[in-house]
């Protein structure tokens, strides 16, 4: 059992899988030097053909990974910055992710696309601050956004072992977080969420680095507020996988709390929060005692100045307000469960 940083957990997962399975290899920019910290030491340990530095040719190396996968390998493609996925969208979504259907199941395409540092990073400005996981969910591509080190470990292992294309987003703001990772940690299945904190009044769905914020807010609200307002019992649910989404896990939580707030760092329009709220409104209407709410990134590119950047990102204060506002509607706790039955 070792307490390690998220980034170290990724590195360990990758190394473990590469040692276990000789068909796993890494392709990306500056992966031998390990600019992004996930491949440190691996070129020396495993050789240049397992850790391949590519020219700056995202479309080609993404397609290359698919070809290698069809021929029996399990490529892990590293993207240095999130917006490179825009350039590689065609080979991921239109080629790799459609290939199995298009060939009537003739082949599998086990490629993992990893962005070890997605989202805003204080001052990296518009082209380096995207967190574009919703565009892969939109296309039905398996998509993972782990929040913590142990989840990063187990989900990275699963992504690599998965027989379909998987896009793996490690939020930049989560990379420094630490957590225990068991020495014999194994895969965590895709599509299964994690309840970080149980609660009775409000379900907060939080993704990636925002789980930490949700937990902070949950803690704050668990105490009576300055004005003597009632404590609010918040359940923090992290879907971990964006596609497939753990709808059963969500339903279980919302059926208990009757209230839903989604905290999501994609743009507002057609983002993941929209999907969660829409599904809840449509399929869990009988359980909801208050209208569901979203706290998301604004629908705008991120400006350079840090105060402007922060102003566009979802915040704890916004979350706390939203949780308070829904908690104020309808009966609370066990009562709520009676009321909706």
């Amino acid at each position, binding site marked *: 059992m070792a307490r390690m940083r998220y980034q170290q957990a990724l590195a360990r997962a990758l190394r473990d899988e590469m040692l276990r399975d000789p068909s796993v290899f890494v392709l990306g920019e500056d992966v031998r030097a390990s600019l992004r910290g996930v491949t440190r030491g691996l070129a020396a340990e495993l050789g240049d053909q397992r850790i391949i530095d590519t020219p700056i040719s995202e479309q*080609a190396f993404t*397609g290359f990974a698919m070809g290698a996968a069809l021929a029996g390998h399990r490529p892990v493609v590293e993207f240095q910055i999130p917006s490179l996925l825009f350039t590689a969208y065609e080979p991921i979504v239109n080629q790799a992710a459609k290939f199995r259907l298009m060939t009537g199941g003739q082949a599998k395409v086990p490629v993992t696309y990893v962005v070890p540092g997605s989202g805003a990073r204080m001052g990296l400005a518009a082209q380096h601050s995207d967190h574009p996981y919703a565009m892969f969910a939109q296309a039905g591509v398996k998509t993972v956004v782990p929040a913590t080190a142990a989840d990063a470990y187990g989900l990275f292992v699963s992504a690599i072992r998965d027989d*379909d294309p998987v896009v793996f987003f490690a939020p930049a703001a989560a990379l420094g977080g630490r957590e225990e990772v068991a020495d014999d940690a194994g895969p965590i299945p895709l599509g299964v969420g994690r309840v970080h904190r149980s609660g009775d009044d409000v379900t907060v769905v939080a993704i990636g680095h925002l789980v930490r914020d949700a937990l902070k807010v949950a803690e704050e609200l668990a105490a009576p507020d300055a004005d003597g307002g009632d404590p609010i019992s918040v359940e923090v649910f992290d879907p971990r996988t964006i596609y497939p989404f753990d709808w059963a896990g969500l339903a279980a939580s919302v059926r208990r709390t009757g209230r839903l707030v989604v905290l999501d760092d994609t743009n507002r329009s057609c983002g993941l929060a929209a999907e969660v709220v829409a599904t809840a409104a449509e399929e869990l209407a009988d359980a909801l005692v208050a209208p569901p709410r979203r706290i998301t990134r604004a629908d705008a590119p991120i400006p350079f100045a840090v105060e402007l950047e922060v102003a566009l990102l979802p915040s704890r204060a916004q979350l706390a307000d939203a949780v308070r506002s829904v908690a104020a509607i309808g009966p609370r706790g066990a009562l709520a469960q009676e009321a909706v039955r």
Partner: protein
Amino acid sequence: MSAADLYRTMRTIRRFEEQIVTLVNANEIAGVTHEYIGQEAVATGVCAALRDDDVITSTHRGHGHVIAKGADVPRMMAELLGRTTGLNRARGGSMHIADVSLGIYGANGIVAAGAPIAAGAAWAGLQAGSDRVAVCFFGDGAVNQGVLHETMNMAGIWRLPVLFVCENNGYAVSFAQEQATAGSLVERAAAYGMAAVRVDGMDVEAVRDAAGALVAAARAGGGPAFLECETYRFVGHHTAEATMGLGYRSDEEIARWRERDPLLVEAARLDAAAVAEIDASVEELLERALAFARESPRPEVSSARDYVYASGLVPREGVAV
């Protein structure tokens, strides 16, 4: 491959395509298809230089490549007619037809998209200690797609056994190759440090010989190579063009190229009886193929979301259930 075999393959492609046009026009095949008519020598000549374990990636104009690489013609026909016995179980159709077991990594709806896929397959061959090669077919229009260049560079630096086969039929839909392309194609490829050869794409033996030499060099560790085949399509860009009146090339131009029909060129090297016998057996094959296809079942609507994920995940429907 003997002259007779080369002719047989070309004849099969030609007659397959002619049948497809009829079937599309009769609405027995859905969508549009891009015929390989006129270009048969390229696929046939190149694939004659290949082994079963070699990989190819193809294009929107893919039937010729797929036949030449050895795919089952009745199952191709069934695919195009949308039957479950089709190569792709009716999921792919013309533009995605594939037989991965024969190293056919698919026709492709996106120009030049097959290039990096071929390179990845070639790299995998090297890793496996095999001397297999990968051939990437593409048109003259594809040479202006950036991904092709990215791939040629990667194949160059890693000395991958990839043969880049450019079928220069003079046009990308309506846009003439000389207007679309600065400089010469072979020079472009040569700038990546690879052998780059131009060949008469209407002469199947010339193509076979040129491809054979480049493939042999690639197998021997010589790295990638580029083969430009000068060819022509005798028909429209796709089955829908006939009614469009795009008028980008003259009847005379088409007639001039038709004189160099690759089937005529090769037939002239065989005796008439042999040609007649091959022609008859090709008709028989195609009749059998069509009968097989027509007798085969259409897919069940309930299976519409099958085969999307290898893990068994089934995609969500468009309505809440």
